[in-house]
């Protein structure tokens, strides 16, 4: 079965979470989640531990019940359908291959449950193994394979029944860095070729930003923002999103009029709504901080981290505020640790938050 054949037979679905709520005792895991996943889209659910992302996925898979709200797949409420009839393939964090079955039997398991004949299911399982690049491992048992290989087999198993939705529950978190990088490219390639609607749960922002068509950031069971990775990074809707996605420094600022603040001695327009009361901080990304060597400058370089093409400097202001700034590595040599520098922000609207 080539990806083209699979893509032809695959049916991508629209998934909608409507006012989904789930509590565990006094803990609210999902607090009225509203979210739509478009057909053929890879949507990453991103957030810190306990934000409800895995709960949402498990409710969609049928492994968890909900208190109220709806989960619609192509307009049909699936919350009353048992897990084994939901038509959603899932890849778990802990591989979850059946230890007593070989790779090919693992992949063919779902087809066996459906009553597909032995010859046919083995042929299809073999084709899926080729799809994930492991045809030579067909007769190996899970304990004879590496973590990355096991996860590929788990992916093939999830795709075997040609599900309408593919659910990935932190599938890369148990793998080492290099395998993780390869596998995430592999998953993305397959997802795009098959055009299957995919929900990908992760707490790794880099993973979410690099793989997903859109990223939904969750916090305490609520959706903070759902947007394309570039938009999420450049125009975060809330301070939480701004600080959770990428690196942010907080710089104290003063109100300087309607929709304007004064920071580092200059006035800047505020991006979005400005809190009506209270002291404010400007949120700024390291690549947006401008530094120039100056013996009388207000910023003192306190540390430098080499990141390859750029070097991340941490500078300290007189009031103790620490700000991170990314400079091209060649330029950063002019600002060694202990040197002073002038500091400024680009002349564009800034994001502010309460102190």
């Amino acid at each position, binding site marked *: 079965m080539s990806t083209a054949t699979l893509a032809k037979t695959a049916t991508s679905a629209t998934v909608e979470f409507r006012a989904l709520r789930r509590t565990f005792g006094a803990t609210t895991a999902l607090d009225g989640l509203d979210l739509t996943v478009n057909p053929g889209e890879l949507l990453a659910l991103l957030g810190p531990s306990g934000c409800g992302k895995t709960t949402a996925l498990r409710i969609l*898979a*049928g*492994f968890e019940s909900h208190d109220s709200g709806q989960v619609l797949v192509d307009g049909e409420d699936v919350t009353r359908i*048992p*897990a*084994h*009839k939901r038509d*959603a*393939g*899932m890849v*778990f964090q*802990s591989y*979850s*291959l*059946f*230890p*007593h079955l*070989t790779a090919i039997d693992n992949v063919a*398991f*779902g087809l066996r*449950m*459906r009553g597909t004949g032995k010859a046919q299911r083995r042929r299809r399982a073999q084709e899926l193994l080729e799809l994930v690049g492991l045809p030579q491992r067909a*007769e*190996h*048992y899970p*304990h*004879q394979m590496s973590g990355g290989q096991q996860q590929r087999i788990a992916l093939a*198993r*999830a795709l*075997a*029944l040609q599900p309408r939705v593919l659910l990935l529950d932190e599938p890369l978190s148990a793998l080492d860095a290099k395998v993780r990088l390869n596998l995430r490219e592999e998953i993305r390639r397959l997802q795009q070729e098959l055009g299957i609607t995919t929900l990908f749960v992760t707490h790794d922002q880099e993973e979410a930003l690099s793989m997903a068509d859109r990223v939904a950031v969750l916090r305490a069971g609520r959706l903070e923002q759902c947007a394309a990775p570039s938009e999420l990074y450049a125009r975060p809707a809330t301070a939480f999103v701004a600080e959770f996605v990428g690196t942010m420094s907080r710089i104290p600022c003063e109100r300087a009029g309607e929709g304007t603040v004064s920071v580092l001695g200059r006035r800047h327009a505020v991006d979005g709504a400005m809190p009506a009361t209270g002291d404010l901080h400007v949120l700024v990304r390291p690549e947006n901080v401008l530094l120039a060597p100056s013996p009388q400058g207000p910023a003192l370089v306190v540390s430098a981290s080499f990141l390859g093409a750029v070097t991340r400097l941490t500078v300290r202001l007189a009031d103790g505020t620490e700000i991170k700034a990314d400079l091209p590595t060649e330029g950063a040599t002019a600002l060694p640790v202990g040197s002073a520098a002038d500091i400024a922000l680009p002349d564009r609207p800034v994001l502010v938050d309460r102190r």
Partner: protein
Amino acid sequence: MAQLISRLRVWRGAVLLLAGIYFLVPMAASVWFSIDDVNGIGFDAYTGLLSAPGFTDSLWLTLGLAAVTVVVLLLLLVPAMIAVRLGSPRLRPVLEVVCTLPLVVPPVALTAGLIGVLRWGPDYLMDTPFFQTFVFIQQPEFPLVLVIAYVLMALPLAYRALDAGLRAVDVRTLVEAARNCGASWPRAVFAVILPNLRGALLNASFLTLALVLGEFTAASILGYEPFSVWIYSVGNSQGQMSVAVSVLSLLITWVLLLLLAAAGRERHHKTATS
């Protein structure tokens, strides 16, 4: 360092030798006693076993009791343990305490309790269908009351064996993975969980079998004659034959243990060669 290793080897050898003497000398003495004849060596004690009155009856009774005990025990324990792991993990300590409780009840006390119930029951249940139940479970041909006693006695051993097996597999995730692949609850358990508990099921069965083969107190006090009681009664009249039977039962136990180990190794070998 080399000196330390050689000293450790000497100690290891000494401990092994002592343990070997401790186990092998009584066994060798038993074998020698069972074949010692006035004319040299003879196997009359072994050849006469099959024709000895009560041998086959007691052996079959014991094997039958063991088989039923194993089945009842596994039917009780396996679903309960899987259900607790999947549905109510908080109840695990409760189940553990309940299952290991028989360890602190001596067989004599357990049997005394059973006798009390058996005496009390018919008086109170004379006019109810339960009276026939009391009669039925005490039939000499197949005393189910012994199965009840054996199930209680084997409960801690079987629980430990199964618990070790369940700890080795991520039951919840495997069931979820199976259900995600279209398996209903029962199929998920039968197609995924039980095959991965094969070793634990064999261990629990073997321990139960070994316990039933050797249990004497309950059967003797309740007045039945399974294999262990028969050996004891034969020992009073035919000492050589009773020792021969003991040696034979030891061999049977070893064979069962080897079969268990072979069954466990079979899969390992299968996976290694693949």
